[in-house]
């Protein structure tokens, strides 16, 4: 029996227990476009929570969300009694759609040759049928920033919703930000510029890479200053929006030294910078707050560098938030299946000083702001895209169970690889 047949058989069976992560009721063949989630607690994140509320979803958008909202005629009603509606969460860094199985050569498609690939756009390579897509959204993660890695400039990151038949259908913004890194020397520790244990060569190599990066951006700036450059240089042209400050530049960095380097680079080229990773950013929290540089924190599933305190990775998001830095979380999932653990990254931060409300914002409204889509996603408000989920409790609590996921107003099915395998083998007869 193939998986599709099995999935539909299970859906028809309906009553079959699905363990804790239960499947929704069977759906009609033609998906209705109007839904009402009734008698539920709405957590808009952008405002105070609403008890005994109803969320109406029509044609992909949130039509209404509130306590006195009537159920429209013809709507498919989902009883939300005892449950909570949250906006879909946004993973601000992973390799969704471009990694299937990391260790298999054909299973990853993340690293282009060469150091400078600003003209590469990841969206074209996103596999809409990746098994990671439905598995990730099953935990309420409905959008992701996906991008390539390796080299100095990785190209365009895409903000995608975790549903859609084609890459373009998935895209919220296929050119949401340019991704770069900043040279560092080996080691880590508290001063990233120090060539730890590598003598002067590593520092020299780093200096050379920094000079190359400056030279490259200078040339790109000169190119983009010309009215109609011939011959065209596609990599330089791709940097135009970033050099004009129209799109943010994500810098994947870790150390204090790298961050200082990025700030200097930003000053020189007037870049709109978003730091990502940046485990040592707590050292510059006040500076980053004053300069309004957002930081994508995480993954928190990492050990501290060198002699950093044992809780440094768990605690730095809280330090940044307290200083007034706008933060959002990433999982940096490279196909290991960690993207679905986005809320549990945020949970670890709350155990070590991050305010739980801010943690929730840092997986919803904050990334929506950072990626320029706060008019579309990130909160439960009338007029916004219906990316949301229904759950039994706090999304940051591992024990909570997601019951329903909507992306662009579509009710997501539960026939992912994990639930189908579970069903299949749970019903295996005793040998």
């Amino acid at each position, binding site marked *: 029996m193939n998986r599709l047949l099995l999935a539909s058989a299970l859906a028809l069976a309906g009553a079959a227990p699905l363990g804790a992560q239960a499947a929704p009721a069977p759906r009609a063949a033609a998906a209705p476009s109007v839904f009402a989630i009734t008698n539920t607690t709405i957590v808009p994140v952008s405002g105070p929570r609403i008890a005994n509320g109803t969320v109406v979803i029509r044609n992909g958008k949130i039509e209404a969300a509130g306590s006195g909202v009537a159920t429209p005629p013809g709507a498919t009603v989902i009883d939300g009694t005892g449950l909570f509606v949250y906006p879909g969460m946004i993973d601000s860094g992973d390799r969704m759609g471009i990694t299937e199985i990391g260790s298999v050569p054909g299973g990853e498609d993340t690293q282009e040759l060469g150091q400078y690939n600003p003209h590469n756009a990841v969206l074209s390579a996103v596999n809409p049928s990746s098994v990671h897509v439905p598995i990730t959204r099953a935990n309420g993660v409905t959008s992701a920033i996906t991008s390539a890695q390796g080299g100095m400039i990785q190209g365009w990151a895409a903000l995608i919703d975790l549903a859609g038949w084609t890459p373009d259908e998935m895209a919220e913004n296929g050119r949401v930000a340019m991704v770069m890194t900043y040279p560092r020397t080996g080691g880590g520790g508290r001063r990233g510029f120090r060539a730890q244990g590598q003598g002067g060569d590593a520092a020299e190599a780093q200096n050379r890479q920094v000079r190359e990066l400056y030279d490259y951006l200078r040339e790109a700036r000169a190119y983009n200053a010309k009215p109609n450059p011939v011959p065209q240089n596609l990599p330089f042209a791709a940097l135009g929006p970033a050099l004009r400050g129209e799109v943010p530049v994500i810098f994947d960095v870790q150390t204090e030294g790298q961050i200082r380097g990025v700030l200097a680079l930003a000053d020189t080229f007037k870049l709109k910078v978003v730091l990502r990773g940046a485990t040592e950013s707590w050292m510059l929290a006040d500076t980053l707050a004053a300069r309004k540089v957002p930081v994508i924190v995480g993954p928190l599933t990492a*050990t501290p560098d060198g002699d950093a*305190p044992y*809780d440094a990775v768990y605690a730095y998001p809280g330090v940044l938030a307290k200083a007034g830095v706008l933060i959002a979380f990433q999982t940096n999932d490279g196909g290991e299946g960690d993207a679905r653990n986005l809320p549990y990254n945020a949970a670890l931060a709350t155990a070590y000083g991050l305010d739980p409300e801010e943690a929730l914002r840092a997986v919803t409204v904050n990334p929506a702001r950072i990626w320029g889509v706060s008019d579309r996603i990130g909160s439960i408000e009338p007029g916004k895209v219906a990316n949301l989920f229904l759950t039994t409790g*706090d999304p940051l609590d591992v024990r909570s169970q997601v019951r329903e996921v909507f992306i662009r107003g579509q009710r997501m099915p539960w026939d992912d690889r994990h639930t189908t*395998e579970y069903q299949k083998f749970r019903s295996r007869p005793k040998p």
Partner: protein
Amino acid sequence: MRASVLLLPVTAGVLAAQTPGTTDTTRGAALPVLGVAIPAAGTLVAVTNATIITATHGTIEKGTILIRNGKIAAVGKDIAIPAGAQVIDGTGKYVMPGIIDAHSHSSGEAINEGSRSVTAQVRMQDVLREDAIGMYRELAGGVTTLNILHGSANTIGGQNAVVKIRWGLPIDSMLFAGAPPGIKFALGENVRQTNGGNIPGRPARYPRTRMGVEELLRESFTRAREYQAEWKAYDDAKKALKKGEAEPIPPRKDLQLDALVEILEGKRLVHAHSYRSDEILMLLKVAKDFGFRIASLQHVLEGYKIADEIAAAGTGASTFADNWAYKLEAFDAIPFNAALMAERGVKVSINSDSDERARRLYQEAAKAMKYGGASEEEAIRMITLNAAWQLGIDKMTGSIDVGKDADLAIFNGHPFAPASRVEMTLIDGRVFFDRLKAPTLEALIEALKRRPRANTTSEGAQ
């Protein structure tokens, strides 16, 4: 109150005559392990007014744990606190058994003797470092016991070391006294060297297929049986020796075969790295044919497919909570694995195999509730008692029961709640981690603020 349970310096006068007591039987002669005495706990310690998650008999609200000489002397609601007891105020805190990581490589200076397919003679015990920072961070995550395993480079790897994280003491004092010896086996892609192991210029190492792995196992234990028989014949001849007869000549000593014979005799526990259901069934068959039990299947990501067979073999399963897809043989992994195996009667633990995951195993264990609906107590047991059972130390640790070692993790909230963290970790009733005295990021930031300012370089170009 907390000051009264200050971690006393090792040199303080609390050194008791309690030695690790581990004896090394693998080299033939029973040499005591070199080690210093393990400092005893204060004679009496009481953790009071806490929510106690026992792992065996439910949760006790506002309960007290009384510890005498490092062992749990009493647990319950109405425990009288003897005069002179050091009191740890557990008000608002949750206490669970110290976490046991059934798959760790922390503190191993080297973990893979992968030059040959059978290296049963090498020992993790010989390459442990007491200063491995990973262990301290794990202690700060409530972990008290580690099963430090050889890597998975070869089919029959080296011997394990079970340690308690008595941070600050020499490594030999961390060895878990009385823990049965064990060994690492490995199956599948790693021993086949399919992922990067087949380096050009380096000769290929047999076996390269799962077929070859089975053959190698059968070959090895056939040799071990012959070796065992040779020694038996020798021992019998010696016993039957009459006056005036020539002494029989002993067989050639073989450290590798010694370890395999210990497996055959049930004296050495096998912890087998495995992924696919077919290779697991193969191993269970080989073990049955040679009359030994596999103590634990490690990773066992497809265990859910053959849970009944694993349960019938009396074999434990030590798995990841939700890691998957990092290689082909992990592509059928599902996060429901732990709960589904448990439902079918397998004793399941959730391990880390990582210095990172080991820091938050409590969060990983909660996933067994999320995926497949394990009960809270079952999920707690997956990082405590079940792991202890797999390591053969469940009579000594793994739950909060009278008579067991006072290995405890104290949280500021329920261990599965999102904002919870470890405040204190006790081993044998002694505080080995106390967040109030630990070097935290917060403390570092405070210290940096007080630091006299030198000429600071301006931010920007470097």
